[in-house]
């Protein structure tokens, strides 16, 4: 797949490299900083793409914080695989080091080499599951080995098993499974409060504290899944369901049953998407914002917000992030409720409302000074308003967990499934400004 993998700093200088195949010159990566610079300095900014073909070598890279991860290949390879592999690499390393930055690469090069060795061989991806990798590539195994001969560390059977995500012999005193249904709402609202596009991105997350090799079966009120055994009319239809690799896909396809042997600990069992074509034409939290710019003196912002959810529900930690010009200063705020903060480095003001019961409406007025000299840029206010929020005990789509049956054929223990629902803002809950 990829002949070489490189970790590079923000300028494109190599921090750590692994050559898997030797079919590309080892100094090929030295061209990368220049190519990167070329692309960034190009007048036509649309030239920037995360792929470069230079002298017959393809540079495929993704950015993560102040790092680039770059894969090199000279063949017409499966590009999606390379990108997903690189992103998995980031995921695994982040789980190992908490934060993946330039610093953490310098500090942990030994273990990164080991992981790279285990995750890919001769350019072919092998194991990218952190839980399994952690079984035999342990941060501190240095200490473990000091007293015991090396015979202890063995490749877990799981690496090559068909159940490659769970090891044998897990035991818990109290067998519990926690199920979180989290729906992230992305909405694009125009300045008149009309919803242009909306989608619900749902995740069903499980934290499994279960012994042995339990077989789980999850029941949802999805129409597609529960057509035959379900008479309740309030079913929903999910599009585009994606499952964790532990779910038996063919069983789902043929019988519409979700069955799986869960990995230990936390994981995302399934994710789904619901688009606005089905419903959700009203913003959950509506924001109406009027900005008046008096050139050379001040800017006035009048903002009102309203929750359009059930009266008994409450939105928590609501943040309304309103962009302001870079050069605005001396803010004065008059919120009816909550607090307002000025964040000059991000050129915005943030209106925070800790709790926001359904059906309520609040107003806020803000005034900021503008410099007397002319600023060349007068378009910055195109930046949309962003809204963050959380609404517990509520799913927008109406999805419900009917049951979670846990069956461990050998141990036959009692177990307790717990379910929690939450709706929150997604990455893109934005209101356009005029």
């Amino acid at each position: 797949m990829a002949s070489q993998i490189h970790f590079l700093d923000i300028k494109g200088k190599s921090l750590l490299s692994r050559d898997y195949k030797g079919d590309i010159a080892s100094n090929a990566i030295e061209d990368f900083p220049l190519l990167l610079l070329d692309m960034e300095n190009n007048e036509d900014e649309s030239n920037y793409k995360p792929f470069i073909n230079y002298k017959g070598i393809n540079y495929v890279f993704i950015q993560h914080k102040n790092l680039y991860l770059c894969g090199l290949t000279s063949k017409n390879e499966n590009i999606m695989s390379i990108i997903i592999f690189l992103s998995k690499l980031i995921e695994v390393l982040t789980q190992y080091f908490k934060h993946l930055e330039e610093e953490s690469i310098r500090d942990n090069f030994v273990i990164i080499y080991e992981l790279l060795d285990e995750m890919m061989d001769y350019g072919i991806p092998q194991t990218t599951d952190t839980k399994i990798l952690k079984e035999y590539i342990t941060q501190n195994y240095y200490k473990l080995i000091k007293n015991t001969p090396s015979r202890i560390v063995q490749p877990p059977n799981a690496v090559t098993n068909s159940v490659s995500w769970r090891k044998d012999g897990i035991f818990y005193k109290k067998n519990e499974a926690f199920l979180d249904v989290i729906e992230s709402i992305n909405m694009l609202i125009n300045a008149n409060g009309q919803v242009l596009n909306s989608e619900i991105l749902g995740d069903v997350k499980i934290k499994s504290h279960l012994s042995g090799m339990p077989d789980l079966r999850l029941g949802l009120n999805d129409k597609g899944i529960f057509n035959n055994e379900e008479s309740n009319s309030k079913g929903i239809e999910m599009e585009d369901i994606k499952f964790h690799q532990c779910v038996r896909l063919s069983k789902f396809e043929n019988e519409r049953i979700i069955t799986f042997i869960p990995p230990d600990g936390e994981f995302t069992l399934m994710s789904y998407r619901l688009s606005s074509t089905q419903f959700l034409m009203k913003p959950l939290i509506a924001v109406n914002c009027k900005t008046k710019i008096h050139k050379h003196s001040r800017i006035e912002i009048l903002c009102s917000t309203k929750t359009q959810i059930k009266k008994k529900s409450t939105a928590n930690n609501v943040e309304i992030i309103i962009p302001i010009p870079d050069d605005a200063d001396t803010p004065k705020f008059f919120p009816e409720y909550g607090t307002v903060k000025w964040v000059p480095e991000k050129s915005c003001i943030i209106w925070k409302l800790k709790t926001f019961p359904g059906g309520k409406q609040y107003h806020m007025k803000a005034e900021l000074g503008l410099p007397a000299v002319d600023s060349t840029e007068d378009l910055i206010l195109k930046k949309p308003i962003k809204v963050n929020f959380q609404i517990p005990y509520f799913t927008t789509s109406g999805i419900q967990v009917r049951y979670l049956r846990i069956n461990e054929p050998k141990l036959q223990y009692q177990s307790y499934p717990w379910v929690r629902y939450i709706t929150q803002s997604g990455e893109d809950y934005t209101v356009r400004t005029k």
Partner: protein
Amino acid sequence: MSLEKKIRNFLQGPRKGEAYELKSGLVSQYKHERKDAIQRVIQAMTLGKDVSSLFPDVLKNIATYDLEQKKLVYLYLMNYAKTHPELCILAVNTFVQDTEDPNPLIRALAIRTMGCIRVNKMVDYMEIPLQRTLKDENPYVRKTAAICVAKLFDLNPQVCIEFGFLDDLKNLVNDGNPMVISNALNSLYEINDLNKSKDLDILIINYDLIKNLLLVLNECTEWGRITVLKCLNDYNCNSAEEANLIIQRVIPQLQHINPAIVLSSIKTILKHNQLLQKASQDANLKKLSSPLISLISNPIPEAQYVGLKNIRIILEKYPDILSKELRVFFIKYSDPLYLKLEKLDIMIRLSNENNFNLLLNELKEYSMEFEPSLIKKSIKSIGLIAIKLPTSIIKCINLIIELIDNRGGELIINESINCLTTILRKYPGKNDLITLILPIISNNFKIDEATHESIMSYIWLMGEYPNYFTGLTKILSSLWENNFNEFNNEIKLIWLNSIIKINLNKNLNNEIYSNLLQKTLNEITENCDDIDLRDKAYIYWRLLSVNDEQLTDKIILHKLPPIDSVIKNFSPQILNELINELGTLSTIYGKPSSTFIEAPSNEIKQVTEEKEIKDENLLDFDDEEEEGGTTTKNENILDELSDLFTNNSKSETDDILNLFNEMNITQPSQPSQTSSQSSQPSNSKNIDDLLDLF
């Protein structure tokens, strides 16, 4: 100090400095000091320092029970083996021993590392360990050994074949463990790419193998699935039943969380779907729409981009597959620019009579953004919609007017002029449109702020619709006086065309025009360094002096055929190649792999060979690279050209193609006009003129 001592000191190297410290650390009598030294050596290596001089000392530490230390030494070996090939032999003993270690992790590590030491001498020592590990009881070792066969083949194909490793590897395809199977497949694919000998059967994909693969598909890890899917895709089905079986088994994979699996599944389904009956084809296509959308809801922008590029290709082959999904492509403020532009491209393709109002509203928003290339493309897109959907035309023009009024600025005005000109090319001679459009253009055009393209549009419009310009004489004279010398050849060409057309227009009789014409002809024939432009001026000049009104009317005033569509499309041949290469790098570059991947040197032989083998149905896989190699460069150019001229009326296409082919030879200076719309008027005009001449 005696001379002898000095020499000795020199040979021993410095007693200070990093290298010395490391060296003494590596040979220290204390375990932890040695290990520490190795770590520091690796660190220096990571930083790009050359520590190859320490090779013998590092090698001394290879025999250890400490797994971490062993891994580090192995890593060092892999990196510097080439600098000390003869010393590598010293490590062989440890390698061979390690492949017998009771711990499978060490057995696998040893065989993996041995393969990575790319030194020819190593080959002789690999036979026994590799044989042993290929038959190891532990699947973890077997899956590592499977890949080692490809590494050996890379080093020395003959040895690999003679010792029977290739056959062993082929047997592993039927192993009981899914991961071993997928690695064996991968390894065979690698060998196939490396192979240069033509009478070697490497990977034979037959129905038995496919049946087996369908069974293990669900058992594989995510990466294994991608390999299996690749193999399923490469199989050529013998019947609709086979195709149907594969499709039914692959469909569940569309729900996997890994987008690479989703895309590979889509590719496989699309390929085998062609063998099915129309009704089931459509049913299967319907199932692909939400997986396709899922590719762009991935949080990684780079993956979204790959998704978009593939969607664009699939859309061209199957235009109805996403007909209801316009909204998901709406641009997000936080998207990187390359995503925004790509989404815009797809939205235009999805536009139809029902959704263009919605789309135009979006385009209006995008035109008010701050990234120039996004603004440009948005305005261009408004034009594309007007041309694609005749009912939208007035709305589109009004939107452009609104943009000019509300925002203005040279960027918007220039782009709007180009866009409006293109709209007129689609609906020539429509009085209401002309009276609507031309005043906007003539009011807003400012030569000082114009781009080449907008100048060309402007001059072309003057030639085409001279009656709608007020003060034409003044405009032309001023352009001639102040700007003509700065025009590039493309603009001069259009100027020449336009000025002649104005002169031939019977409603416009003015000395100024004929003066300008005379001056232009003089200027171009005398001072122009471009042969084509000069020749063209001569031809016109002679034509005019013949004074045959009918002839001049026919040639110069010949109306251009209206353009059909200006949305870029691939030629059918390239499209098919790209569909076959879905998910690969070629989809990103939008061209078949043969155009950017170096073809192997023995390409032609292999291609013919390939075909023969295919006929006999022995070798059921297509090697995409090689197949692409059959298209010669000339054909490619032709394809691109025919792309260019799909706008012209079809009956003429062939002649034009021929003509243009000649022109292409005689006019090397003609800029490669990848359907830049505003240059098209002149260009196709050019050809029409020439056509009539012949």
